[in-house]
């Protein structure tokens, strides 16, 4: 495995906090406190933590959809102030346009983004490539409501990829799927991400999940978060060989890592379950 800490960070979170003011009571709530983290080019980083620890808020700040109350979020050294096509997002509920077919959803970015729009011929080639890549061939003229959950997920993934972002942000993308589909899509995700490619050619991925197994299976590093306020407790290196296959899950190395993470968040996960705020 190549060393992660040698390169300049692709994404840098520097001392970010997020404070909410509850409109009704005027009470201030600190959702995220002093989070700092560097993510390097080509890295696959998973963020795990109990419900309400601010995982999604961090992702939204990197996407440019939310601003930190304090601290800075930067990409390649430049502060992030707004959403941009260089940072693609796959949302938990997919957010596919219901009035557009699979094909039209996938070509949305290249067709309508503000800069570097593609012409019809180029777009056609690109869209075909991504439809094949996520195995939606034959379904390109269907509307989202005609697709299964797994197909919708793949369509959302292809829509983000077709815009050719440098960084891919994924917010619990497999949470709404059944267990079998989830396992299959995890392997698919690694294949599409390009496990065999050199690091410089891979996309940088930041992946939010509840699933500890999922995080260990996918990630180069796992950031474990704690609650009230949300902080990064530990960042664990996952030194499992790539390409990773289904059989990896049964190995003792895998189990040890997963258990270590579980012990870290166990108490807070219980609290979040029992004492819902």
């Amino acid at each position, binding site marked *: 495995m190549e060393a992660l800490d040698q390169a300049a960070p692709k994404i840098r979170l520097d001392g970010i906090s997020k404070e909410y003011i509850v409109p009704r009571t005027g009470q201030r709530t600190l959702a995220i406190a002093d989070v700092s983290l560097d993510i390097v080019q080509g890295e696959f980083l998973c963020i795990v933590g109990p419900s309400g620890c601010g995982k999604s808020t961090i992702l939204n700040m990197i996407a440019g959809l939310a601003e930190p109350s304090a601290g800075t979020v930067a990409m390649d050294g430049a502060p992030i102030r707004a959403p941009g*096509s260089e940072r693609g997002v796959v*949302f938990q509920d997919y*957010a596919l*346009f219901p*009035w557009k077919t699979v094909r039209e959803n996938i070509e949305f970015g290249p067709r309508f983004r*503000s800069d570097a729009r593609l012409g019809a011929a180029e777009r056609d080639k690109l869209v075909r490539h991504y439809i094949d890549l996520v195995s939606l061939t034959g379904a390109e003229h269907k509307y989202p409501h005609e697709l299964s959950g797994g197909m919708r997920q793949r369509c959302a993934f292809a829509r983000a990829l077709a815009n050719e972002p440098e960084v891919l942000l994924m917010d619990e993308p497999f949470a709404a799927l059944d267990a079998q589909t989830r396992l299959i899509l995890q392997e698919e995700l690694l294949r599409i991400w390009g496990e065999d490619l050199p690091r410089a050619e891979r996309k940088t991925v930041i992946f939010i999940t509840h699933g500890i197994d999922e995080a260990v299976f996918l990630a180069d590093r796992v950031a474990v978060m704690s609650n009230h306020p949300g902080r990064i407790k530990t960042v664990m290196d996952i030194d499992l060989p790539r390409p990773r296959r289904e059989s990896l899950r049964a190995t003792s190395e895998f189990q040890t890592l997963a258990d270590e993470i579980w012990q870290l968040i166990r108490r807070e996960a219980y609290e979040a379950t029992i004492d819902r705020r």
Partner: protein
Amino acid sequence: MNLALRLRPFVLPALLLILWQLAAMQAAPADRMPVPADVLATGWTLIASGELPLALLQSLQRVMLGFATSAALALVLGTAMAAYRPVGRNLDPIIESFRPIAPIALLPLAILWFGTGTPAAAFIVGYAAFFPMIVNTIHGVRSIDPGLIRAARTLGVGRLTILRTVVLPGALPNLFVGARLALGVAWTSIIAAELAVGAKAGGGASGGIGQMMFVFYAYSVDLSGIIVCMIGVGVVALLIDRGVRALEYWMIPWKR
């Protein structure tokens, strides 16, 4: 489908028609109770002479003129009101205080400003159509899933393009609800407008189905003629509604 099933929707109307005919034949002064057979005869004459289709077409043109103008205005204003809070906050009280004022109450102003022809009638129609259209536009734009707008932003799409590619199609089903309601009240108010405009002009000047009714009432008390006009109004209203629905079906393929 077999014949009996096909004829079923017509059984009740036919029965009612027969009852009406029988009742009318019993009633003493024939001019107070229209007789179906007479209505049929009058209707045939009015269609054959071209008077009825011409009057309906004239009214329909005014409805379309008034509706198109006011729908365009309602679309722009409604979108601005839904998308930008300050615009909504400032315009909402004005619109809500005009909304209960019946279109027909504006007739004196309409006649003073526009005379007794097409512009006055179209103004009344436009006023009536404006409110259902703007209320549904605001509702349509507000009820768009904000997640879709966020998704478009993360794909690097600019604000104006989002308006065209996300907000407009997202609001389309509600825009159609607005259009159907607006055309309904527009068609209702054209009759009222033309009736009143006709009263002022003393007939002949402006035409339209409303005035045709007025003439039947004021000059000859021709009940059959009035009934024929009413049926004509109903048929056109039904055709408009079916037309809008067909357009909706065609323009919103993802809801089929």
